[in-house]
């Protein structure tokens, strides 16, 4: 009986969760050893990317479409709020061989 109630609550919460609009998420993308770490698989408009520079070098996360440009000294972090959908390629202005890609859903 207790189990049934718990299941019902979980189900109700799940349904409520689906009905709600997208809750903005924050994803971390690291910079280390002259490269970017993995990017999140599912980014949506309104989500935040927190760039964390763990490297000994200064790096940027610069969108090729100009939508963001975060310049980070070693051991610092910065954030970008994603404001449009689509594929956003980014690179480091100082080390142009450092590249990454975000695939943003609407």
């Amino acid at each position: 009986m207790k189990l049934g109630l718990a299941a019902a609550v979980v189900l109700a919460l799940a349904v409520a969760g689906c009905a709600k609009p997208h809750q903005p998420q924050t994803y971390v993308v690291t910079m280390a050893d002259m490269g970017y770490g993995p990017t999140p698989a599912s980014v949506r408009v309104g989500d935040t990317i927190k760039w964390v520079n763990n490297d000994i070098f200064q790096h940027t996360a610069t969108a090729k479409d100009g939508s963001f440009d975060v310049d980070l000294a070693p051991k610092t972090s910065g954030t970008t709020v994603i404001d449009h959908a689509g594929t956003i390629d980014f690179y480091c202005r100082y080390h142009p061989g450092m590249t990454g890609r975000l695939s943003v859903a609407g």
Partner: protein
Amino acid sequence: MIRMTIAAAALALALPAAALAQAAKPNDAQIAHIAYTAGQIDVAAGRQALAKSHNKKVLDFANEMVRDHTAVNNQALALVKKLGVTPQANPTSAALEKAAKAKQAELAKLSGAAFDKAYAANEVAFHKTVNGALQSTLIPDAQNPELKSLLQTGLKLFTEHQHHAEMLAASLK
């Protein structure tokens, strides 16, 4: 193979033949000295560009060289201290320094766009040469795994800088 590469690197830098004749397989203390010297040379070249150039792209690039090579050299100093190794002067680093001094004197005579172009071209050549030396000699010959790992970071850095220097040189044409 190693001899050939050192010869090629020496040619690119116009090293004196006497330095070549003495070039033998370097030990870790010598490797650390060569890598550190290469970094210092590029920091000095960057400072020269910062003092002489008025081109924003060149100044940005020079700032990056000073910043990155200082960062990696600070890591190198911390590592040799930790390992209790004293970097050892050797003919290769002496030849590198000599060639760099000559280049610095040559660049000192130039100004404006002529300086910018010559600096960018030399940055491409210098990074290419050091990359070659890291790949063919310094990394394979390094015995200590931490030194090897730092040199590999150095190779990534120099490769990125070469790429950036090539873009800079192309944009100045």
